[in-house]
Structure formats: C-alpha cells, structure tokens
C-alpha cells in the first residue's frame, strides 16, 4: 500500500515493469521489492529445501527470500535480490525455484516430509544399492536443489573492470561515512565514498530523525552535495565493497547499467580494485530476526526494513501491523507507522521490563509462538506476561537486535569479539591493517555517536587536527536484552534461505557436530546466498545454548569474500572470447591469410598451418607438397616467433658459458652454435642457436614456447650470480622479422635478393647483409636438414620481405611452407621441440650428454648427475619407423613384442610422428627405456585411443641425411 506524501521516490515518473507475467506500475526510485509491496504483492519466492512460500524479509542486499530472475536482451540473471534491483521501464522479472508457479509449487510437498529431511539426513541414506546414487537419488536431489536458472547460452553483455586509488576509502554513506568523508575531504585528502545503494545517505534516508535542525535525509543530501562539489572526492553509488585483500586493496562491485534497459556498450557491472591508504568501514548494522514456530511467512519482516519501506519508499507493507522485538529502537518503527496512519495491532516486547509509551496495545515478556497464513500472514499466536492470545495481523515486524556489519574486517581471518552489552560481535582493531570500523559497524548506534565516530576516526587514521563541527543529532541509548528463539514445538527458522531451523542446529549438537564449523557444514546454516547475514548470530546462540557454552566460546564461522555475491562476468570482465590472452600477429599474417592458410595458435602467436593449393582437399596433401618443395627446390617460412635475445658486453661469453651446457666463449665471430640450456635441477629447459655477431656481441635464439621463461632465467642468473659482469641483454624478438629460406635453391633465391651475392658462407655462419640498402642479418642454420638460411630484417619491412621471398621462391618452383611441413621436416631430421623437451627430459635422455662441457660449470650441471637422471632405466630418445602403412600417433605407448600391454610392461611413449613423404613412411620420435641400445629392434606401439597396434623399428632419430651433407652443401 503506497502512502501519500512519504518517501524519496519520484512520483512524477511512473515506471512499468512485469513480475511473473503481470504488469505493475511503480515510481522511479523504487526497488522491485518496494514496488511489489506497494502493489500488494507479498509472495515473492520459495525457500531452498522445503519450498516454503516466502515474502521479502529485508530491504537490502542481505535479502534471503525475495530472489528472482531478471530477464534482459535474451539473457536472464538468476538470484537477483528484489530488494536491490531498481525498477525501470521494461524490467521483466519472475520468481524462481518453483514449478509450475509461485503460488502452486509441486515441491512444496517437501514441507510435509520435513521430519525425514532434518539436518544431514542425506549422509545417512541413499546408499543402497550403490548404482542408484548417480542414476536415481542424485538427479532427484539436484533437480530439487538449486535456486534460479542459468541459461545455457553465452553471456555476451559488456562488463567493465577498473583500478582506483585514494588516501581514504569510506565504505558506507550513512551518518558515520558522510562525516568521515567530509572530515577527510575538507583536509584535502583524496577520498572515495562507496555506497551500495543508488542513493547515498544510508539509514538517514529511512530514518525520520533530525540532524542539525533539519530532517536527516535533507542533511544527508546537503552533505553529499558538498562532497560532490569537491574535486578530491569521488562518490561511488551502487558500489558494494566486497573484499578486503592485502595491503589496502579492496574489491568492489559497481552496478553500472542494471537500472536501465540494455544499451550498447554500457557495461552491466564494473569490478573495481581500489587501493586505499586508509579505509573506514561505515557499513552500519544489520537487524536480526527472532526464531519461533513458522516465523518465515510472507508478511513477516524486519522492523528496520519496514521503516525503510515506509520512509524511503512511502510504502506500508501491511494494514494491521504487529511488532515482536527485544529492544527499544524497533519500537520507533511502530510509532512511525502509527503516525503515518497505519494500524498497529500489538507491540510484543520480549523483555520482562520495558517501557509502555505507545498508543497501542503493548505486551511485555511476550513471545510469538506460532503464525498462520500460507501465502501471506493472517494471524499470530502470542503468549505474554498476562496470558496468551491470537492476533490478526498481515505484517509482523521482527527485531532481535542489530549486528554490526563487520564482514570485511574478517576477510583476513581475523575474529570479532563479543560485546555482551549490545549482544553482538564487534570488530577488533587491526583485523585488517589500515581498516577501521566506525559507527554502527563498530557497535555504536545513536546518530550522534555515529557522526562523532565518523569524524574522529577519519581524523585519527589520517592524522588530522582541523575538524568540522558536529551537527546536533539524536543520542538515544540502545537498550537490548538478548532473545534468540521462542522455545516450543514445530520448526523455527534461523536460516531462511537454506531452511535451517532451531531443531537442525540442536540435532547437529546432539550428534556431536559441536564446533561451529561442524554445525555450519552439517546443517548448511550460513551457506545460502545471504551467507548467514540474517542467521549466523542466532544460530550460534542456539548452538551455544545446546552445548552449554557461551557465545564467545562457541565463536563464529569465518566471513570470506565476497561480501555480496559477484557475477563471474564482472570479475572476469574482458576475458571472454579472445580477450583471455593477447593475440600476437606476425608481419606475414595478412600475406598468409591472403593465400588461404589456416592460422593456428602457437603460444600467443598465430602461425600458418599450411598453404593450400587448388586441387588439394586435405591438409596432408598440402603438407606433403610443401615438404617435398623444401627438399627439392626452396621453401620460405616465417620464424619470427622464436625468441631473440641480444647479449652484449665484455663478459657476454662468460655468461653464455654459465647458462649453456656448451662453451660459447670459443665460438668465432661470424659463427653460430647450437646451445642446450638446463634448469638448475638438471633437466632440459630449452634449446636454440646462438650467433656471435661481434667480439662482445651475441644473439641468442630460444624456442617460441620458452622465450619468456628463458628471459626470466637469464635475468635471474645475471642479477643473482653475476651482477658485476660487464653484460647487458635485451629481447629483440619483436625488432626483427625473420624468415627461413630452405632447400637446394635457397642460395639462388637469396642471391637474387641481396645487394651483394653471398660469398663463402658455410653452415653455421652469420653475417650482416643488405637488401635494397636495408640492413639485414643472415644466419646459415637449418631446422629442416636442407641447406638453410634465416634472414632477418627490421620488423617494419617484414611483410614486404615475406611477400617478396615467396614470389621469388615460386619462380624457382618453391613457395611458402607452414607449421605442418616444418614439423615433418624437423622430425625427418630428428630435431627436437618442446614435444620432446617436455620438462621431464635430461640431456642424457636426448643423447646430448656430451654437450655438457666437462671443463666448466653451468646451470644444472651438478643436478644432472643425480643417479635417477641417468642410466638404462631412463627412457632415451629414439627414432621409430613404422613397419606397415598404418598411421601411428603421438601419445602411443611402447611395448616389447609379446609382452602383455599394461603399465608394468610399459617401455616408453611416442612424442612426435609424421608421415614422411621423403621416406614414404610413417616416422616417429619416441622415448624408450635403454633406447639407444635397442636400435634395430622391433617395438610394439599401442594406442588405445586411436585403436592402433603396430610394430615399428627402433632407429637413430636422424632419418634424413644422417651425415649432414645437405646442410653443408
């Protein structure tokens, strides 16, 4: 029921929305919950386990009951709090976790079976017969469980993520937060004021009090206007600070576009990482319910929430109201309702001694013992000091006291302390370095105290002397007498969302699950979407009672991030699709695509797989052609992805001798040498060639895959072990575009291109050349086994050179070749990649033990001699030649012919295979136990996945041109 002349909604703006297919009208500024209440809708959801009908309990993000699905732009968002969702024209919401509809939900049958569904019942049954678990029991449980529904459809909406920095982060914009922000801002500090609600002011907006002689809400608005005008203040409404991480880092979720209809590029949410010098937690407090039989019906709400609906939204959620409370504060709400013309049928104060000042029936020492009304409250049963009675009511307000909203203070495992006088946990100073709780979050409840603590805390943490004056405000003391649960039969709810009752907690204790963590995990109390915000303290009070301990000894479970649930899309903003990792493109990328080459991922790079020609219908045809092209004429491939590190200095040679197994100080200028690099644990890290460009100047290449790791390693070795060396190195991977030119006609091609024809330039030479005056580097190295060169030009010329090289190659009967052919060529030549040096492989395993120079130390040398890393038991690299035409595959395992195929008999495995058009045979590289001693033997290759079982001959890994004559041609 909407009341005239109340609330901070904009009555000039009507907003139309739908809930469960029915159209309703509210006002701008309404939440979905307030608008539905204004329209007389009380039933908004169903509970998790018993599917009990539920209405709204709270007015904030802690809402356990009124969770709905919101539909937009073909997507839907489950578990949206109706209390937080702002209405807008076109908003479509519907109830969830019910079938077929909210009023008539088939699974409410669970409610009747409740005696058999007590805490942990599922641990004790559903075990026989074993096969029924996956087949029958579990699917039934899964279907009944869960809340809202996720569409099995990509969420393609926009989400944003950002960083922010400030001197002071103030969390919450109630009296404490506003005063803290004002104090810091006036002192010139850089302030962020974050507020979960779309309107700033916190409880001042729901309050009916006075500050500084004006209405609380007006004072709040005036203060906010002052702050907004200051350049050193950032106001962040709709922003919930959700996590407290190390060193002043906070995560926060801003609802950017959830209050308007979908718009292109407008992010739905923004996930903030805020780095704050100091933080003031001014989040206020949350009211807690009281447990009694059937205390979960629609129409039973927290008193503070009713106050919010009344003053903030101008809604009376009932016509005949009752209040059940254990403190003075809640009674203000009853008085405000009466002032607004709403009938208050009874005030039920649980305390044996309490004032009676209201102009309505007030009962002390009162208990609500039961309630009626399936889809909406109709009456309650009450016992009190003078007897018992039934009271007709459609709105029962509860107040069991207030819990400081201290969740963030616990995010680093700190434990709050119990304060007997306010029957609540409060934060202990220092639980989060740099974060200080103030105001109600710190256990002070009057407006005057909050204002003072906000100001004084800001002054203290920032070291300020000049403080603003405090406006006059209400300073009523907070009088409470703990009251947690009305004893009696029936189910009294503690955790509304997860349907955990007083009985469940008692059963947990009865069965020995007495640690608060055991109770939580056994009953699921506190594991629902509200994470126990409405139930934790009540539940542990019941547990304390059941186990004969006090509340402080019982302790709390740990609050962990996030404070309110945060969408995966917001935290992972930017990660969808290709955003997950940078894309690296070669200069030849477009030229390769122009030729129809499929581009495949190689690390972060995209490389051409093969270059199809008309008439070729499979990749294999193209690959075979490209291999033969290299073997017979000339091929061109972009190899720019290899890591390139420029190393200079008088100690460059010494350094290389330390990081490589081989000796590079003896390498002549103008020559290139193959290098093997070990990790300090003695296993192979990477391999590549290094060229000596000058006396004190080397150029190292790494594999594409290990480029980053090698750079990090070199930096470590340099800085940790030889920082005083005359040595500098830097990555030049991106500075040079480098192309392999390989095949018998490679030299012919190059000579047509270079400004000066090649003279004597033997295998493993390097030198500077020019092309049209552009300085280029030429290396005579080969990854194919043919006469091969790699020519490097400054990257800006890369595309142009690639197109030119390919055109020239084509005139010689050659052309470009891709990754597939490159792989075949290197397998034919027995050259390794990270398929072979996969991290578990030693120099011994790949037959390179002789490359570990004996006369000098190198990284990994000592560890490589560990007994487990050498010897015949090790799997050693061999070549495999299939003895039939049947394809073989990498990943197959090796067995001695005649042996049973099982793990115990395994002899090794295959790492790389290809069909070799050169040798007209399937070839493989493999690791085989004592493999080098088994050349010439037959081995059985078994691949269960590809269903192959073939014999191969074990041979030397170098299949093609084993003497290397072609390389040196």
């Amino acid at each position, binding site marked *: 029921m909407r009341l005239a002349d109340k609330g901070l909604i904009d009555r000039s703006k009507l907003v139309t929305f739908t809930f469960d297919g029915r159209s309703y009208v509210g006002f701008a500024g309404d939440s979905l919950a307030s608008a539905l209440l204004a329209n007389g809708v009380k039933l908004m959801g169903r509970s*998790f386990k018993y599917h009990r009908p539920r209405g709204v309990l709270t007015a904030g993000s802690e809402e356990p009951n009124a969770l709905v699905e919101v539909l937009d732009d073909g*997507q839907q968002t*489950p578990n949206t709090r109706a209390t937080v969702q702002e209405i807008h024209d076109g908003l479509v919401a519907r109830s969830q976790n019910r079938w077929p509809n909210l009023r008539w939900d088939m699974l409410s049958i669970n409610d009747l079976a409740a*005696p*058999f569904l007590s805490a942990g*019942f599922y*641990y*004790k*049954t*559903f*075990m*026989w017969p*074993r096969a029924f*678990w*996956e087949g029958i029991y579990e699917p039934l449980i*899964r279907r009944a*469980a869960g809340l809202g*529904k*996720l*569409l*099995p*459809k*990509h*969420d393609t*909406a926009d*989400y944003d993520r950002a960083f922010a920095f400030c001197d002071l982060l103030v969390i919450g914009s109630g009296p404490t937060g506003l005063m803290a922000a004002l104090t810091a801002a006036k002192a010139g500090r850089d302030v962020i004021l974050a507020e979960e609600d779309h309107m700033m002011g916190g409880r001042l907006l729901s309050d009916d009090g006075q500050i500084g002689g004006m209405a609380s809400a007006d004072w709040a608005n005036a203060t906010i206007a002052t702050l907004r005008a200051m350049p050193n203040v950032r106001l962040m409404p709709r922003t919930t600070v959700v*996590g407290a*991480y*190390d060193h002043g*880092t906070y*995560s926060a979720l801003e609802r950017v576009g959830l209050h308007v209809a979908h718009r292109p590029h407008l992010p739905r949410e923004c996930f903030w990482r805020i780095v704050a010098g100091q933080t003031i937690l001014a989040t206020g407090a949350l009211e807690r319910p009281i447990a009694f039989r059937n205390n979960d019906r629609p129409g039973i709400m927290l008193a503070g929430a009713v106050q919010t609906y009344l003053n903030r939204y101008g809604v009376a959620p009932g016509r005949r109201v009752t209040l059940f409370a254990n403190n003075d504060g809640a009674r203000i709400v009853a008085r405000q309702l009466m002032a607004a013309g709403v009938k208050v049928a009874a005030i039920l104060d649980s305390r044996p001694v309490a004032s009676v000042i209201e102009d309505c029936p007030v009962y002390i020492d009162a208990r609500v013992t039961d309630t009626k009304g399936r889809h909406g409250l109709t009456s309650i049963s009450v016992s009190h000091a003078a007897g018992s009675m039934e009271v007709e009511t459609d709105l029962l307000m509860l107040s069991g006291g207030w819990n400081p909203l201290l969740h963030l203070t616990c995010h*680093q495992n700190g434990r709050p302390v119990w304060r007997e006088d306010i029957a609540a946990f409060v934060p202990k100073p220092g639980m989060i370095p740099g974060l200080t709780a103030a105001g109600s979050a710190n256990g002070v409840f009057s407006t005057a105290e909050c204002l003072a603590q906000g100001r004084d805390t800001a002054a203290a943490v920032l070291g300020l002397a000049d403080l603003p004056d405090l406006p006059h405000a209400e300073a009523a003391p907070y009088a409470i007498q703990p009251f947690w649960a009305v004893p009696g039969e029936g189910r009294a709810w503690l955790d509304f969302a997860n349907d955990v009752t007083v009985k469940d907690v008692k059963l947990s204790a009865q*069965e*020995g699950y007495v640690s608060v963590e*055991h109770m939580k*995990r056994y009953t699921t109390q506190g594991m629902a*979407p509200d994470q126990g915000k409405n139930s934790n303290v009540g539940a542990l009070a019941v547990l304390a009672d059941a186990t004969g301990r006090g509340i402080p000894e019982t302790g709390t479970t740990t609050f*962990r*991030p996030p404070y309110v*649930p*945060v*969408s*995966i899309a917001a935290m992972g903003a*930017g*990660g*969808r*699709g*290709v*955003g*997950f*990792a940078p894309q690296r493109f070669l200069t030849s990328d477009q030229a390769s695509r122009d030729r129809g080459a499929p581009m495949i991922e190689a690390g972060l790079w995209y490389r051409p797989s093969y270059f199809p020609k008309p008439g070729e219908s499979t990749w294999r045809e193209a690959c075979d052609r490209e291999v033969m092209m290299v073997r017979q004429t000339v091929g061109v491939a972009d190899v720019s992805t290899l890591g390139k590190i420029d190393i200079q200095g008088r100690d460059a040679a010494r350094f290389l001798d330390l990081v490589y197994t081989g000796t590079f100080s003896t390498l002549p200028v103008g020559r290139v040498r193959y290098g093997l690099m070990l990790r300090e644990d003695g*296993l192979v890290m990477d391999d590549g060639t290094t060229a000596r460009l000058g006396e004190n100047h080397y150029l190292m290449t790494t594999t594409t895959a290990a480029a980053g790791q090698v750079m990090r390693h070199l930096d470590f070795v340099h800085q940790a072990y030889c920082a005083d060396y005359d040595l500098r190195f830097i990555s030049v991977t991106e500075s040079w575009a480098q192309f392999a030119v390989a095949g018998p006609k490679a030299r012919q091609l190059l000579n047509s291109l270079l400004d000066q024809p090649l003279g004597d330039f033997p295998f493993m030479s390097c030198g500077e050349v020019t092309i049209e005056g552009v300085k280029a580097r030429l290396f005579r190295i080969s990854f194919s086994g043919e006469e091969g060169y790699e020519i490097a030009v400054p990257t800006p010329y890369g595309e142009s050179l690639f197109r030119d090289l390919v055109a020239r190659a084509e005139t010689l009967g050659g052309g470009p070749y891709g990754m597939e052919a490159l792989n075949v060529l290197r397998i034919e030549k027995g050259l390794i990649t990270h398929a072979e040096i996969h*991290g578990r492989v030693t120099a011994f395993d790949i037959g390179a033990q002789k490359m570990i120079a004996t006369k000098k130390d190198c990284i990994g040398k000592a560890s490589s001699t560990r007994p487990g*890393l050498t010897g015949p038991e090790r799997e050693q690299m061999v070549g495999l030649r299939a003895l039939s035409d049947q394809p073989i595959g990498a990943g*197959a*395992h090796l067995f001695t012919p005649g042996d049973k195929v099982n793990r115990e008999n*395994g002899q090794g*495995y295959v790492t790389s295979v290809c069909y070799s058009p050169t040798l007209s045979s399937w070839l493989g590289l493999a690791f085989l136990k004592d493999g080098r001693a088994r050349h010439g033997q037959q081995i059985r290759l078994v691949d*269960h*996945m590809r269903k192959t079982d073939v014999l191969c001959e074990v041979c030397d890994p170098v299949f093609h041109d084993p003497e290397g004559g072609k390389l040196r041609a």
Partner: protein
Amino acid sequence: MRYSGLKVITEGLFGNKGWTRAWRDPAPKAEYDAIIIGGGGHGLSTAYYLAKNHGMTNIAVLEKGYLGSGNIGRNTTIVRANYFIPGNSEFYSHSLKLWEGLELELNYNVMHSQRGQVVLFHSDGQRDLQIRRANAIVNQGDDAEIMTVDQLRAEFPYLDYEQTRFPIYGGMMQRRAGTARHDAVAWGYARGADQRGVDLIQNCEVTGIDVENGVVRGVQTTRGPIRAKKVAMIAAGRSGQVAAMAGMRIPVESHIMQAFVTEGLKPVMDAVISYGMGHFYISQSDKGGLVFGGDIDMYASYAARGNLPMVEHVMEAGMTLMPMIGRAKVLRSWGGIMDMTPDGSPIIDKTPIEGLFIDAGWNYGGFKAVPASGWCMAHLMATGQSHEVARRFRLDRFRTGQLLDEEGTGSQHNLH
C-alpha cells in the same frame, strides 16, 4: 548406530530424538600404540585403515582444531584417477577403487558421484599429451576416452567453440571420475575410526615431538604429553612446522590455493570440466552451486586466503571457456594451504627417525587421494614396508633424482 533409510524414517517419526553422537569426545590417554598428528582427511583415513586393516585400535588422532578443519573441507571435491607417470598412476587408480565402495564401507553417504571429468585440449601438442595420458590410464586398467569436438558439442553445448581465444580441439574424458561431498568424507572416516576404538582428540595441538637417540618416543601437546612408539605426521598445510619439531627440513613449501562457489542454480552442468589453457576447472554441486578453482596464488603463505590476480585469472578463464556462467554470482571464495613438493607428487614414507612417519606434500591433489593415502600410510605404519602402489613416494627422491613430475614443470619449487 547404523545409518539407513529406514532409520531416517523411524527417527523422523519420533522427532529425531534417537540420533547419537557420530564420534566420542575422549580425553587423551597417557600412551598409545600409535599417534597420528592431524585430524584431516588423510589422518582420519589412516586411523580408519590402521584399525580396520591392521587391527591397530589403541591409537589416537590429535587435531589442533576441529576434525576436518584443513583442506578436506576446502577443496573443489574432484575425484579422478587420470595420472600418467608410473608411481602416480597405480596409486590414484587404487584410490578410485576405494572411492567406489566408500559409502558402503563407511555406512556414511559421502555422495561420491561418478559424473565424469573432461580435460579439454587446445592444440595438436596438447592432444598428443592427453592421448599419452589416456593410454597410460588404460594401461593401468582405468577408463579414459578421447572426445572429438562434435562429441563435446553434444554433451557440453554451452562451451564457447567459436569465439574463445584458444579453440577447443577435443577432450580427454574419464567417466569414472567425479566429485564427492568433502566434509562427509572426513566425518565418515572419523565415525568409522571411532567405532573401531580410535580416540579422536580435537582441540589438542601437538607442540613437540619427543625423539631420543634417533627413536621417536611420543609427543607433547596442549593437553599434556602422550607416549607412543609410532608417530605419523599427517598435517598437510603445516607439514613443515610439524617436521621441524622433529628437527627435519623437508621438501615442502606452503602455498595458497583459492576456490570459489556460486549461489545455487538449477542443474546446468553435469560433468567436471577442466580447461587446458588456463587454470580453471568446474563442476556443479548437488546443492546447485558451481564449484570451481584455479592455480595456487604463487607465493609461500600460511594465511589461508588469497589475492585478486588469481581470482581474476580464474574468472577470465571461465568466461573464455563457458561464457554462460557470466551471470552466476560467486558466493564465497576461500584459500587452502597446499603442501607443495618440488615435483608435485606426494610423500608417504618413513623418516630418518625410527618410528616417525610422514604423509605430506599433497600439492593440489590431496582430496582424491584420501582413501589410498590412508590405506598406504596405514600399511607402512603397521608393516614397516611401503605399500606397492605408494613405493615411489619417497622422502629422499629429490636428492636421488627419482622424480615424479606429472606436469613437467620441474623439480624445483619455483617452477610450479
């Protein structure tokens, strides 16, 4: 008390008044035949199998907090046997077989659900590696299959097959893999051990290990000294500190690993899905929450909480792999303390101190190992010999080079 459906019904009819304690709350005795330091999953299963398989019932489990307060209650509940290095393969195979009978064994429903796990691959090289792994699994006698993209599309239509940064080439499926209810595993073993006479002593922190002339004599605790001829250190997450009490320096670094659960959702995901190009694996619990995790936070820590960069990485991986989960909201995140060994494989071994045993270094794979770890540790403690499926989990294997490096990232702590 025996649990059954009938018992649930009869108790329900009479107000659930008859349920008794799941385990006793005994005071520590002055001496036991064996003491287990650590009341987590591994400690409890060791106690259970010592009593069940070896008749050792005069034993105590000493837990500094509450039973199951470590990683057994802080993980992503995945159970699988898809290891491929000899030494690991047979151990996890044995563990999975124990899982398959665990409810009936313990008379406690641990909700072991063999819903399958698929590990996706995203390149030819990754495919070859998964085939090698799958072949090894089959050679071991377990199940594995390679799924094509078409098969994946049919079973997991919500993965992003078109836009994702690293296209899906296929997946390696183990149908017998799945999940279990983690707390229930601890409670089930605890109840089983207790029923066989084991003393489970909570809130009893071990403060010292008594060693005389290279022989263990007992422990000092916050509840007084306790003598024992055999003492087992099964305190993953604190292994280094416990071993230090015996003067040992062990090859373990402690790291944080975070995991996440969303609000409850109606069934949307059946199997466990693991991404191959980032750290992300996900399943849906019986309650409806999506349970997922990533890599360790990558810094030594005992703080049992994580930081944002890894959180964001995990969420990004989820979004590129299955953007459908974008609107699921993370309800809770937590951090467990992982015992990281240099090669990523565990330790179940004697120590140089006579009578002192160690079960540690479970890295991020301890949950699925709980049954076999207890089985093998009990075997070692009772017989003095390593169980055949755990004989490679040696404490000194780093010095000797007998490494068990499943990931190939290296046998140095810094390379994980």
